[in-house]
């Protein structure tokens, strides 16, 4: 199902996913809001912009494109997308992070249809993606492997071992995106352990490097298009993003890496996304809610006192 939405509809979809994402984490009282919100446009572009060739009705198809969430803590973004795509009933989002959930806090391929690798141990998803791309080359298969990294994750040595091997084996079927939000658990990445010139680093490792505004669906899509045409070398997109994007009090605050929302914060977050949705010219975002009934949603939005 290689669905491709026009940019207007792509933006509408991104905001609806963002709304569901906040609602899901608020409902669960859990999740990693910062890095999930920063990756919304990237994943929206890949899943709905005509890039990822995957079918919800056949999630194990060997010919499918793979998508590895190496930053496995941003699973919530992928979960709302997979629900929207029909990999599982939308009501499943209610079980995010409950005990022994099929939607665990970090991606688990054995529990969730549409998840291609169990990730969360940072750095390893990148290597697994490299291995998948290598297997594709061995089989002369035409599938692509996408891999989403966090910039903090790039402090891990394994990323660069993997980068070297991808260049050696000319993995032009591998497309890595760095969700470059500049923050990690303990603060600014530049303070914790500076990555320096990321473009120069990836180029020095033999990669085709693209950069873009990671919240511009147009820019992400254009970059992915160019990456798809690069031959004989792997491609990386350094997508500059804002951690917590879309919720004013979460933006650029490292505390929101994995903080739980209070009831009031949840109400405000949903209200802000509703406002943005309207500002884009769309109406009634609440109708897009994938998994809550009117009453349950009213509790989260503060429109009903309990």
């Amino acid at each position, binding site marked *: 199902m290689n669905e491709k939405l026009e940019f207007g509809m792509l933006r509408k979809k991104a905001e609806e996913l963002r709304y569901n994402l906040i609602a899901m984490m608020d409902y669960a009282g859990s999740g990693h809001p910062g890095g999930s919100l920063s990756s919304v446009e990237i994943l929206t572009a890949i899943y709905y912009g005509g890039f990822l060739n995957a079918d919800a009705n056949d999630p194990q198809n060997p010919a499918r494109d793979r998508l590895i969430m190496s930053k496995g803590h941003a699973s919530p973004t992928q979960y709302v997308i997979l629900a929207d795509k029909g990999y599982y009933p939308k009501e499943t989002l209610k079980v995010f992070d409950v005990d022994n959930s099929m939607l665990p806090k970090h991606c688990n391929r*054995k529990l969730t249809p549409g998840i291609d690798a169990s990730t969360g141990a940072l750095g390893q998803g990148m290597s697994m993606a490299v291995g998948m791309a290598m297997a594709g080359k061995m089989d002369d298969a035409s599938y692509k492997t996408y891999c989403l990294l966090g910039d903090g994750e790039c402090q891990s040595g394994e990323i660069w*071992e993997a980068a070297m091997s991808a260049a050696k084996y000319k993995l032009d079927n591998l497309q890595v995106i760095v969700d470059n939000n500049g923050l990690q658990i303990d603060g600014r990445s530049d303070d914790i352990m500076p990555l320096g010139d990321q473009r120069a680093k990836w180029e020095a490792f033999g990669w085709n490097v693209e950069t873009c505004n990671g919240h511009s669906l147009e820019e992400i899509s254009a970059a992915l298009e160019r990456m798809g045409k690069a031959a004989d070398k792997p491609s990386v997109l350094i997508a500059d993003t804002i951690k917590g994007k879309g919720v004013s009090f979460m933006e650029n605050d490292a505390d929101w890496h994995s903080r739980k929302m209070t009831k009031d914060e949840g109400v405000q977050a949903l209200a802000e996304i509703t406002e943005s949705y309207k500002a884009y010219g769309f109406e009634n975002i609440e109708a897009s809610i994938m998994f809550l009934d009117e009453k349950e949603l009213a509790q989260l939005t503060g429109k009903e006192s309990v």
Partner: protein
Amino acid sequence: MADTKGRSLVSKDIFGPLMVELGHQYPNIVVCDTDLMRCFGTKGFMKEFPKRHINFGIAEQNCMAASAGMALCGKNVFSSSFANFATKRACDQVSISVCYNHANVKVCGLYAGLTAEKNGGTHIGVEDVAIMRSFPDMAVVEAADTYELEAITRYMAEYDGPVYFRQPKMYLRNVYDSVPSFELGRSVELKNGRDVTLIACGIATGIALDAADVLKENGIEARVINMPSIKPIDAEAIIKAAAQTGLIVTIENHSTVGGLGSAAAEVLAENGSDAKLIRMGIKDHFGVTASLAYQLKQNGLTKEIIAGEISSCLR
């Protein structure tokens, strides 16, 4: 005594050519190296199947996790490094990318235990079995000679799941005179006896057989059990031997902490056995820079020392 003539005692001599044969038979087999083709014996595979061979260089973590990625795309991946590096440098990758993902990767630990000899403590893996045995979903195997190495390798070409495949650089002797059958979770009684049971794996199985001969001269009838499948372990055989012989002696080319001896202790204790257990192996220290013969002696892993221990215990 098995005939050793014409059969190499060196793991790579048997493993390398066999992988070329199996490569033809099983198109999904992939071999991954970490700059140790000359130790793994896989240069032939690389030449025969260049597309199905990846040399990751000195980057064990990426090798093991990328192997998992290949396995998740249908490959049966044999990936190696020195036992110490495959299991400790890449410990997290083997645990998470391979086991947690249930990836079909055969993690091959080379130059296992004291057979790394003068490479010394950095290369002599004495705790690799302990670590690998603790990983959920991981099977742990080690052959007693190159005939059994062949049996295990053929089995692994069919088997789908994570395995730690421990390989010494070389064996001291052959135990079998033809390729035996192998099954995960199954031990092999090599010698029957009623006074004591020696349970061993890897190069220690040959030492156990020799020790049994020494014991026989002293009038002690030793049972010898080869335990190529350390996990899952053949608990039934251990319990039966404990009940019938009353004294169990485990012998291994590995630390006595966490390896075969510990596995046997767990079985005995949990089944309420009152048999005595002696664990022979490397006694909670790192390897040293010395020949195999020297280190075996230092650790009490010679037939004379083992027979002596048992004789004094039974006296």
